[in-house]
């Protein structure tokens, strides 16, 4: 058993909060640059270049890329040979402590209210985070933090299809979900789709899909092909950057799948804005 200090996890999470808010991942920046090159609509090209400039200002001046520094969604892969010290602490506590510290020290916006309906009072710490844990072999902890904005999350959708429905029907629905997100959710989007699993696993898949590199493809050629078709159809919508028209409505579409019940075919779409902020570390 390897022992990891509570404080070590706190300080790593703190760094992830600050880094992810100020530095757009390289693959996202590369996708924006490629889109700006290819874009045939002059004003859309200008907007894409402004987004690239925004990323540069954010990094140089250490100002958050977007004022919505997000709800912290944390994916933990915890090695089965890991324990946390002192004994009366947990990894989850350490993650939340790190987020509270990171959002305070990094001058990030606290966007979490304690109650959803009655008395929506800000917790002033940006906690609790939404934390997903997975036990994996080994003696390390891998932490991935996604700062998920509210505007795009609001446009995400879930639907139960019939097990006999075909690929075209699902593609049509996903494209329509993106169309409905439109200008409101800050296109060009990164689109994560979950197929299969059950109600909650399907939604989680759609969010996990966002963590793939934007130039990656599903390892199964059927779904890789579906990703390609979706991207092409979504970009044909003409919504464009900021919803003001253009060829670039999405930077990538990524599908993740899981086995499911014979009666079911759940599909979830997680809409992510162009400010696709996430960072990882391994302890």
């Amino acid at each position, binding site marked *: 058993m390897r022992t990891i200090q509570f404080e070590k996890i706190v300080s790593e999470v703190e760094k992830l909060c600050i880094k992810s808010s100020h530095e757009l991942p390289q693959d996202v920046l590369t996708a924006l640059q490629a889109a700006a090159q290819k874009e045939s609509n002059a004003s859309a090209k200008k*907007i894409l270049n402004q987004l690239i400039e925004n990323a540069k200002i954010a990094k140089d001046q250490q100002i*958050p890329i*977007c004022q*919505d520094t997000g709800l912290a969604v944390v994916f933990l892969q915890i090695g089965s040979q890991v324990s946390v010290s002192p004994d009366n602490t947990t990894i989850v506590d350490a993650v939340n402590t790190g987020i509270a510290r990171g959002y305070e020290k990094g*001058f990030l916006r*606290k966007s979490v209210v304690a109650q959803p309906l009655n008395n*929506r009072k800000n917790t002033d710490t940006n906690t609790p985070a939404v934390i997903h844990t997975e036990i994996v072999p080994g003696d390390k902890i891998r932490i991935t933090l996604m700062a998920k904005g509210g505007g795009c999350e609001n446009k995400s959708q879930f639907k139960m299809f019939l097990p006999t429905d075909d690929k075209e029907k699902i593609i049509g629905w996903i494209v329509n979900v993106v169309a409905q997100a*439109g200008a409101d959710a800050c296109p060009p989007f990164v689109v994560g789709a979950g197929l299969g699993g059950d109600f909650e696993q399907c939604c989680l898949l759609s969010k996990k899909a966002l963590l793939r590199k934007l130039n990656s493809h599903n390892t199964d050629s059927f779904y890789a092909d579906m990703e390609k078709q979706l991207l092409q159809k979504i970009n044909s*919508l003409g919504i464009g950057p900021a919803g*003001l028209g253009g060829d670039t409505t999405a930077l990538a579409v990524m599908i993740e799948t899981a086995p499911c019940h014979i009666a079911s075919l759940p599909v979830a779409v997680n809409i992510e804005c162009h400010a696709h902020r996430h960072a990882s570390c391994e302890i």
Partner: protein
Amino acid sequence: MKKITTPLTDEVVCSLKAGDEVSISGIVYTARDAAHKRLCELVGQKKQLPIPIEGQIFYFVGPTPARPGKIIGSAGPTTSARMDSFSPILLAAGLKGMIGKGYRCDAVRDALKKYCAVHFAALGGAGALLSQYIISAQVVAYEDLDTEAIRKLEVKDFPAIVAYDSYGNSVFKKVEE
């Protein structure tokens, strides 16, 4: 690029057409969901508002905290549609312009026509870039709302597009499926 200054007059609003690129200078007030709800409650009770809104522009933004010595943090627009049910009430009370991102509903479009007002779109997700055009910021109401408090901002050459003009036109071609 049309240069406009606040507060807005009917003459200026009438000169703006959907799709026009503008640069805005002068005072704008920040307000998002929670502040809108409170302001509209006051309007409903015929009570005085904590800020003068006649001729003013509301910028739908909840900025990040300013670093020491800085004016403001990241400050880009939030989704306008969440303010849709409130905006007609505030336009009737004298508000003349709004800055946000994304679509507005038909009731807002009608109110923009009726009260000769305008809705601008600023670039969503570009809060670092847009913060560069803000030259002063001060909380003037609802301090308890933290980022959602009403701030008086002075902006200089703030870039935006006329998204919905006072004639019922929109820059957006909404995709219908």
